[in-house]
């Protein structure tokens, strides 16, 4: 058991640190969602990409550094240490780019990966729908093939981060409703400026709009917009979701959800640091955050050995959300009513109920872990082997 850098990794860390030291004054201070801040953050991603720090694990032929998860962690740590923002398009570079690399055509990779990496083109993920969340294979957005091989797309997507900034979206649509639902899906690249695409911000509890709704009204997609085989979109989606789980499982500290940060907040009130109940609550929360940090090291060790991350990563997400909810509650209990309007902790309180469902609800994650890790039997399902087009009628029958 050794958390020290090997000589090679130490040398890599020194290079990364030197680059950041030299360039950190170019980094933007603002981290907001307004246009000027976003432009500055995109420009900074471009600088990071030029320095080889944006897509550490992508293959070199697509502009990445061709390195492993450990080097990615070194970059994350050094970016944190330098006090500068990381890349802007985490969803594109972290999840959608790797999906294109795994399933896209060579032409798609050549066309899209370069500008994605430099944030000249931002991407968004168009999977979830109002009626397809946990059961994302139930998407209803339809893509119909035309005689010339082009597609017509209609439907509605939701919970779309960065849709308002995006040049492209990776979209899961139904291409065949006459087969069971997982078998009639296809993944597409959708230009967000195409006619018929409209984006509406979705405000949440805090009043901020971190997500959007995206409406698709008879959008024309040219032939060759498919990623992976027609009707083979579910496998492509699973790749994206696997990268998402790794990102979330390893990502809590990136949001600043760390035991030491919450300790600092408690110091503001001397009495609370001696209060037995506050100490017990904080000790429990801190224990969870420490567990997450070292679970992350265990996951990294597996990744480094070439093992595919298992469903256990989903448990890290459950722990992250629970600990962050408890931390927001604790700090605001100490700060009193005023805490709820605090930029950091008030917003944490407001954001967490929604985040509990993001990237898989706690319930669906527990099902997944129970079935895949503990090998417990699944619940009986009403949709197995039933053509998608007949599902609604079956659901109505079951209720009646």
């Amino acid at each position: 058991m050794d958390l020290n850098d090997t000589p090679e990794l130490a040398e890599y860390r020194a290079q990364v640190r030197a680059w950041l030291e030299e360039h950190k004054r170019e980094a933007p201070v603002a981290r907001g969602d307004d246009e000027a801040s976003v432009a500055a953050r995109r420009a900074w991603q471009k600088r990071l990409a030029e320095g080889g720090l944006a897509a550490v694990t992508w293959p070199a032929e697509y502009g990445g550094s061709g390195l492993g998860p450990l080097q990615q962690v070194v970059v994350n740590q050094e970016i944190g240490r330098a006090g500068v923002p990381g890349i802007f398009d985490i969803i594109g570079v972290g999840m959608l780019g790797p999906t294109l690399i795994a399933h896209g055509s060579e032409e798609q990779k050549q066309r899209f990966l370069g500008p994605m990496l430099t944030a000249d083109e931002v991407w968004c993920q168009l999977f979830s729908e109002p009626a397809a969340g946990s059961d994302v294979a139930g998407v209803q957005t339809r893509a119909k093939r035309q005689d010339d091989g082009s597609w017509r797309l209609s439907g509605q997507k939701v919970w779309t981060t960065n849709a308002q900034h995006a040049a492209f979206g990776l979209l899961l649509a139904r291409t065949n409703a006459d087969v069971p639902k997982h078998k009639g899906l296809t993944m597409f690249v959708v230009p967000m400026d195409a006619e018929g695409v409209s984006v509406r911000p979705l405000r949440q509890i805090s009043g901020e709009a971190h997500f959007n709704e995206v409406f698709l009204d008879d959008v024309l997609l040219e032939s060759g917009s498919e990623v992976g085989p027609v009707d083979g979109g579910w496998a492509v989606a699973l790749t994206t979701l696997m990268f998402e789980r790794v990102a979330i499982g390893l990502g809590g500290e990136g949001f600043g959800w760390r035991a030491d940060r919450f300790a600092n907040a408690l110091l503001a009130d001397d009495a609370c640091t001696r209060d037995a109940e506050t100490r017990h609550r904080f000790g429990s929360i801190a224990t969870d955050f420490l567990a997450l940090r070292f679970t992350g090291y265990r996951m990294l060790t597996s990744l480094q050995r070439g093992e595919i991350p298992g469903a256990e990563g989903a448990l890290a997400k459950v722990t992250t959300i629970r600990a962050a909810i408890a931390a927001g509650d604790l700090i605001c209990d100490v700060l009193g009513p005023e805490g709820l309007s605090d930029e950091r902790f008030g917003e944490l309180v407001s954001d967490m109920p929604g985040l509990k469902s993001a990237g898989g609800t706690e319930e669906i994650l527990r099902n997944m872990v129970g079935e895949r890790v503990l090998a417990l039997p699944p619940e009986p399902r009403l949709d197995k082997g039933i053509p998608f087009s007949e599902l609604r009628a079956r659901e109505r029958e079951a209720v009646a």
Partner: protein
Amino acid sequence: MNFALSDEQEFLKEAARGTLSRVDTVAAARAALDGAQLPDLWPAAMEAGWPGLLVSDDHGGAGLGALEAMLVFEELGRVLASVPLLGHLPATFLLDRGGPEDVAAALAAGEQRAAIVPAQPPSDVEAAWTIEPVAGLARPVAPCWDGAVVGTAQWVPDAPGADWLVVVLDDGRAALVAAAEASVVPATVYDVTRPLGHVAFDRAAGTLLETAPGDAATAWYIAQALIGAESVGAIAVALEVSVAYAKERHTFGRPIGSYQAVKHELVEILRGLDNARSLMYYAGWAAQDKPDEFALAASAFRHAAGKALDHAARAQISVHGGIGATWEHDAPLYFRRAQLARRLLGGTAGAADRVAGELLTRAREQEAIAAR
């Protein structure tokens, strides 16, 4: 970077499991509740080299670290094996660092047994070295040195039958006392696999150990880590047994493990186990590479493992339905283990308080540096 067990560490665990498989320790634990004698596992422990795990090579020990000791405890915890190492190992850690070499060597070989009379180190809110109260919440101050050891200590693990007592004193030093010089009254309760004693020192003759500052605190946190490791083993078994039952027991025409209410409860055991295991590795790594963080790591581990065992022991009974609460089933034995463990050596809750104290102290130090 590598945050997994080495081949040697995996082998140590396997060997421990092999050693312990020779006796049905769980059945023995049940019989002991009805008055039977527990099997003497000390000869097997000697053969495996466990008594000398934390003693350096120079003194005839294995010279291994806290992580290896935890791995053995994980295996002991799986089968509720009663081997008096919770008192012995922290005691040998102190003796190895500042005690007579011949005693350290006899303890490393297992020819004699020691028990630490532990004291909880001071914190940001408690200036004294404190010990377990007889009852209630107020923690008394540890025994003192006045040319001899004076004081009492309650609920001391493995004190009955020990040849030597290593007493942590109210000033953070430690003294070696022959057990014959002290009064040891057996106080084993509820979990008969865990011998306990009340100890009194009426000017008991002894020698001060030449330990370094910080050693007595490390001994306390080693004991915390060992209780945690034992809990990890017990949680793993509770999970395995419960999952197996949930697959075979049917209600309303399907296995109970297919119902989300049951499935999610079992996943919650796994979540607790997984978090505790990560912190166990953290504690093992800190003991070796980051001694400044060992207090934090061992306390976080003890807290996580204790809380998770508490939940797992109850969940195991619930998943089994009524049968899980019967004398014939193993679940109540794990429940007894969980119930006593959470109240020993400062308790599971005390460990959470210690995590808070360690982190608040660090934050204050950072604040002071920033203010300068």
